[in-house]
């Protein structure tokens, strides 16, 4: 009997150890990944790396067209995904009545979240590039990524809104506010931090997505910049860049990784380092925001 208990306690300790080890494997792999990449790429990180175009000579190649392309694609993505996602989330939480249309929308969003990203790329290729005739442009890429992160934004918006207690709405209605006034002046401000968290996580995902952008046919070698959005003569703003060919950071990294020369691998590591630093910063910001939110929010 006593031996039996001891045996069980031993198993308990063994499992606790296994858990620690498993957790450490996760943590250590991540550290190894990051350190390895940092060591390989650190020598290439310099001001010139950010201001040079890609080149046949690895020593002179840079990521200028890639980071400019990424920034412009992200702007386009945010322009479409944020209003649409927040509006859809508000509708589903505040307006939608419980009927079959709402059910279809909800099931649909759950399913979309499970669709592989490359399938969105095929959607972008068939629909935006050819059907709408947008070509392999920044606009087509931005729209594709916007659809990809839409479920993330919608789900985050809904969760943020759901945590607002009913009394807030009742108070607003009691003062004679309409439904939109309630949403505009109470629901949206109180859920803004939660919504922001979702938007940041969605954007961090979009910035690292490679497969859908390759699928819509983005070029891997671009040695020019899209036309500038700001111009010297009126009307000062130009939207020609939306239709411009482009490349993005992950594609640049993919291109360098697939080359056989080791010198390009250092470039890939440096680009990867920048990419990881960017996504980690964004995700870290989101996690920190959520943490602060949880601590400060006491209804």
């Amino acid at each position: 009997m006593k031996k039996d208990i001891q045996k069980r306690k031993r198993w308990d300790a063994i499992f606790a150890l296994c858990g620690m080890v498993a957790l450490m494997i996760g943590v250590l792999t991540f550290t190894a990944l990051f350190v390895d990449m940092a060591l390989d790429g650190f020598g290439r990180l310099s001001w010139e790396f950010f201001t040079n175009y890609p080149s046949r000579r690895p020593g002179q190649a840079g990521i200028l067209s890639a980071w400019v392309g990424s920034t412009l694609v992200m702007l386009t993505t945010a322009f479409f995904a944020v209003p649409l996602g927040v509006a859809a989330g508000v509708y589903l939480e505040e307006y939608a009545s419980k009927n079959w249309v709402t059910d279809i929308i909800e099931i649909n969003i759950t399913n979309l979240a499970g669709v592989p990203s490359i399938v969105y790329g095929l959607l972008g290729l068939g629909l935006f590039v050819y059907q709408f005739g947008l070509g392999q442009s920044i606009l087509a890429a931005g729209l594709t990524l916007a659809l990809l992160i839409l479920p993330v934004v919608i789900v985050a918006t809904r969760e943020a809104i759901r945590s607002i207690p009913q009394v807030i709405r009742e108070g607003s209605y009691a003062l004679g506010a309409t439904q939109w006034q309630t949403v505009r002046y109470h629901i949206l401000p109180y859920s803004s931090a939660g919504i922001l968290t979702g938007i940041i996580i969605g954007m961090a995902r979009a910035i690292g997505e490679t497969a859908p952008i390759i699928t819509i046919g983005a070029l891997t070698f671009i040695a020019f910049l899209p036309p500038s959005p700001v111009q010297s003569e009126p009307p000062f703003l130009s939207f020609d860049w939306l239709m411009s060919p482009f490349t993005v950071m992950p594609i640049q990294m993919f291109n360098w990784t697939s080359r056989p020369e080791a010198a390009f691998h250092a470039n890939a590591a440096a680009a990867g380092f920048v990419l990881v630093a960017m996504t980690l910063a964004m995700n870290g910001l989101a996690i920190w925001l959520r943490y602060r939110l949880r601590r400060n929010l006491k209804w």
Partner: protein
Amino acid sequence: MSAVPGQPTLIESAIPAERLARRRTRVVRERLIELALFFAALVSVFTTVGIVYILVKESVVFFREVPLVKFLTDTQWTPLFDDAHFGIIVLLSGTLTSSFVALAIAIPLGTIIAIYLSEFAPFRLREIAKPFLELLGGVPTIVYGYFALLFVTPLLQRIYPELPGFNLLSAGIVMGIMIIPYVSSISEDAMRAVPMSLREGSYAMGATRFQTAVKVVVPAAFSGIASAYILGISRAVGETMILAVAAGMQPNLTFNPLEPAATITAFIVQVALGDLPHGSIGYQTIFAAGLTLLLFTLACNVAGHLLRKRFREAY
């Protein structure tokens, strides 16, 4: 108290008429806003319709050229050669083998981490480990691809020198590591949702933490854990960049992870990188491959839904 928009009302005094007009515009505005929000919500439905429409439209043209039986039974995949063969099994073998390797790593490790964090770990450790695992899930997959090709493969070659530079094994291993956070995070949430009273009952009977975890908590949280596994599977099947970088892109009918092979996703990337004319059979092939992938992940989602329903324990 409801005003009918657009209908003239017969009220003489100026102030009420003005008020009524204001209320009328307000009602109209409220309706318009609701309609706009509704259309925003419909965009997600349009996305699904768009995906199905595009994939089916191009696949129909493809299957007019290539009979479905050939597509399912041919053992060669050479769509861009003169002697074209379209056997999806070749690509499916790569997808299944790499997914199997990935899941063989992600499911045991992910489950152990989830059990440990939920039942064993001190509060502080859990508070640090969870966000850290979430961060891991946010790393772009191309970075994992770099890691597989230039770190894991050389490492494995030191142990097993005959390993080719491109292989499914290292891609699968790294894919598994990438999936661990998804599996552990969702499983842990499911286990934490199991009420404390069940654990207390088990401890009161003299069970150890390990016995409680395995015999009480895991069965009670099984529906959530199952959906974590399903999510892991659909992640593995749909993963693209790690395989495109580290597993090579040659079609190869094999179930041996030590060989290089193309997956469905890697094939799509390979074609997209080339310069295929719009409307050619090669162009349509990627939509047929994409449709296969979508059906596969859809089947996973449905299976997950059924599992959740079948094993749902309500407290």
